[in-house]
């Protein structure tokens, strides 16, 4: 599916002259720019998606954590990540907040208002 080069909203063949999202005028082809398919470095093919379900859990955050000593002053550090196809690329990394110590209270939780 194509995207508007101005707002990045998706377009269909029905959007011949104007972007339905930002009203930007489209090129005569009806589509402002070709979809980029240069790499597929990490996620795979163009028809791929991340499965979800409303009673499920979010997918994991797969970005590698940064070395916190290197990112204490900035959160925009990058590090080399190895993609599935073996190529390496500069990929963002993420700082991880330190985990607080667990509560010493190990007693079972009790409900208070579960009257239904």
């Amino acid at each position: 599916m194509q995207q508007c080069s101005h707002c990045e909203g998706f377009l269909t063949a029905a959007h011949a002259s104007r972007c339905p999202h930002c009203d930007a005028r489209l090129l005569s082809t009806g589509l402002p720019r070709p979809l980029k398919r240069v790499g597929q470095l990490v996620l795979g093919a163009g028809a791929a998606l991340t499965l979800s379900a409303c009673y499920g859990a979010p997918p994991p955050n797969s970005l590698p954590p940064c070395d916190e000593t290197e990112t204490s002053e900035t959160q925009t550090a990058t590090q080399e990540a190895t993609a599935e196809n073996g190529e390496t690329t500069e990929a963002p990394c993420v700082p991880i907040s330190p985990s607080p110590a667990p509560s010493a209270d190990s007693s079972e939780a009790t409900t208070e208002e579960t009257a239904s």
Partner: protein
Amino acid sequence: MNLAEQLQGRRVDVQADVYHPAYVVWELTLRCDHACRHCGSRAVKPRPEELTTAEALQVVPQLAALGTREVVLIGGEAYLHDGFLTLVSALRDAGINPVMTSGGMGIDARRAQAMAEAGLQRVSISIDGLEATHNHIRRHRQSFAQTTRALQAIQAAGMVASANTHFNRWNLADLEGLYEHLKAQGVRSWQVQITAALGRAADQPEMLFQPWDLLDFVPRLAALKRRGFQEGLLIMPGNNLGYFGPEEALLRSPLPPDASRPAEHFQGCQAGKFVMGIESQGAVKGCPSLQPAYIGGSLREQSLAEIWQESDALAFRRQPLELWGFCGECPFGAVCQGGCNFTAHALFGKPGNNPYCHFRARSLQKQGLRERLVPKHAAPGQPFDHGVFELVTEAFDAPDPGLRGEHPLPMR
């Protein structure tokens, strides 16, 4: 299994892959230590005739044989099923990634350690706002504090902490504050969805979004997603949040925007194609949130393979849906297929027309219009039931009468 491998387990190519239940959500029991106001399954008491541990263990190799990669154990509260830890280990030993979604009430340091030892690597805690809002929705004065304890215990035990949130008119104002809270608690990924008119939420329509609320909510969420990519908190929308606004590609991607990758977008509900739900009494559906009409069969009467391969009710999404209303004329309809089916069914008693759509709300706004949901018939009071709503198209600047009653919490 590292996190990149776990993410790959949640990825499918909808054009190339053969339908199989790659991602399964399994309700072990409807017994719960919460009785939340928005609970779609109306959980608190167990269902009659829930699967025993022995029966549930027989399902695990059937899942593996069908190619299941990840199972999210839920309830009620999954840990209130006697076989919870046994099943976690059985899934792990079968090569399936076990994950859990929980309200967190009973996850202390001891239980978290046992969960990690059994094989859980990732747990998502349901948090529905900042403290006052969350405790109101969850109907428990200590619930928010317990979620914090649970998040700490999960990480201390070496597991990855995630979070799930339903957004609605009661907690819309908490969005940015909750992001800050989750980030501070070390949460790495956050699933955000909207409260559907399902189960107990159908009894309290005043809490539900009106469709035009997405005009405020989606751009705010997109701004947080951009921040999250920089700050280490991945925000992912649930299937009932979207669709095809200008933020669509940003919202759907699990990695930061990169022109070298194809932009991602919603590709229709995957229920019964790559997603499956199992209810605690053995009923199998294409998605855990679907209404009883979509139950494809019982694991007590048929094998999982038979249900998956032969049930029309489970496989309803393997053919194009009959779209109607705005969705019937929408240029994105062929791809979107009316968005989330249980959400649409919960409003009108059938799928194919979903007013909870960002593109739709924006399109109507440009015409000076909006759609308002008006409750017409109440839900009967069963798990995953629904009422019936009427859709009124009106001027965009018409007064907002709310759906019913007074908001119990201040609005933004």
